[in-house]
């Protein structure tokens, strides 16, 4: 039986592309804002574009942060994409408006760390870039090192702060990329996975990442 995947509709993101790309993996995909359906699905995709603060506000209004927390507590897979990854961290620091001062917004806090503006000569980081996954990555299994993925973002996690020291629980698999400086391109941590790039817009390489994730459901 094919896996049941919910793409969480909380008013952010190109949901149609996420839905269609996910369907290509063979999953049965529903786009909904209903917390119960999102909670019960085999896999939950959390998309997101735009401002961190706006995404967090809409996500919390839709009860999405609680759904994510409960799913993770129950070992049920969640995949955050782009700002849908960023909101999983403790906080985002961004300009409140054009020309305004930086303000910090609290995220879902599933991982410690801060989403900040990338320090690079040209921002947004827009286009196809390479990544360096660790050996224990499952998301990037079977993908060649020269494969490229589509990024479009001005903010990123520049420091990975979660130091997990346990002999029994596998450490999170953190994948890095670089634009002016290194930043976190993907995280795989038990049931919680996330990518800063858009797998649904990354052609065949992106399709492979999504298929790898669906295979874990």
């Amino acid at each position, binding site marked *: 039986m094919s896996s049941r995947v919910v793409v969480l509709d909380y008013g952010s993101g190109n949901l149609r592309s996420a839905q269609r790309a996910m369907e290509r993996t063979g999953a049965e995909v529903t786009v909904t804002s209903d917390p119960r359906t999102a909670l019960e699905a085999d896999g939950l995709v959390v998309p997101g574009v735009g401002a961190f603060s706006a995404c967090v506000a809409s996500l919390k209004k839709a009860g999405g942060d609680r759904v994510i927390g409960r799913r993770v507590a129950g070992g049920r897979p969640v995949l955050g994409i782009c700002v849908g990854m960023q909101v999983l961290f403790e906080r985002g620091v961004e300009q409140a408006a054009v020309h305004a001062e930086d303000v910090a917004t609290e995220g879902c806090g599933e991982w410690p760390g801060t989403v900040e503006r990338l320090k690079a000569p040209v921002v947004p980081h827009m286009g196809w870039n390479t990544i360096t996954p660790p050996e224990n990555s499952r998301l990037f299994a079977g993908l060649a090192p020269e494969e490229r993925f589509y990024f479009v973002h001005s903010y990123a996690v520049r420091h990975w702060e979660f130091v997990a020291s346990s002999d029994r629980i596998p450490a999170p698999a953190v994948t890095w*990329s670089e634009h002016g400086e290194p930043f976190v391109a993907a995280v795989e941590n038990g049931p919680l996975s996330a990518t800063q790039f858009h797998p649904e*817009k990354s052609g065949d390489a992106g399709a492979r990442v999504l298929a790898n994730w669906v295979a874990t459901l």
Partner: protein
Amino acid sequence: MSLAIRVIPCLDVDAGRVVKGVNFENLRDAGDPVELAATYDAGGADELTFLDVTASSGNRETTYDMVRRTAEQVFIPLTVGGGVRTTEDVDRLLRVGADKVGVNTAAIARPELLGEIAERFGRQVLVLSADVRRVREDAAPTPSGFEVTTHGGRKGAGIDALEWCERAAESGAGEILLNSMDADGTKAGFDLELIRKVRARVDVPLIASGGAGAVEHFAPAVAAGADAVLAATVFHFGEFTIADVKQSLREAGHVVR
């Protein structure tokens, strides 16, 4: 590890059909934007741009349907420009599957539109499309000698092009599509001076457009500061392919996908 230079084919569409003849073999329907988009995707396009030239607003529904059908089958980024006047237009295009939206004339008429779009959807969706030419001798000069035009390059807007690009990037444009109206259609190469000057003024990604006539024309545009290169006719008529352009860029030492 570094970002690849993007090669972007641009398709002019009218009421959901590709116009400005496309001349590919093995296409069942050269006017079908979805089939063409899939062909360019398979050919290595890093993004696709649709320029909607639909004159009648009553035909906009066909544009939305075209974007919807394309986004359902092609899994690379899709930019749609032409006729975008309000944040509602942007919302509609994003909802049917566009990833980025190009704004041109409406932003000249009302520059606040850029900030409104950026605040509501994020600056990553907003591409400022600027049609730029050198100021004619009989016209009022601008500080840089370049001006923004409207009506497909036929009318000067009396705005300095470099100041306009800088202002747009500060107001919320996440990217600038720089069309040289002097170079457009000449097939004599990109306007390198214009690219250099805009690059020096903005730190958002810059797409160079206008003048491509040979594969050798693309690397100099990148060297001048373009992050992406866009062309239409040369690809549509099969004069050379996206792969040819990438090979040429690679030989010049640029990173491509």
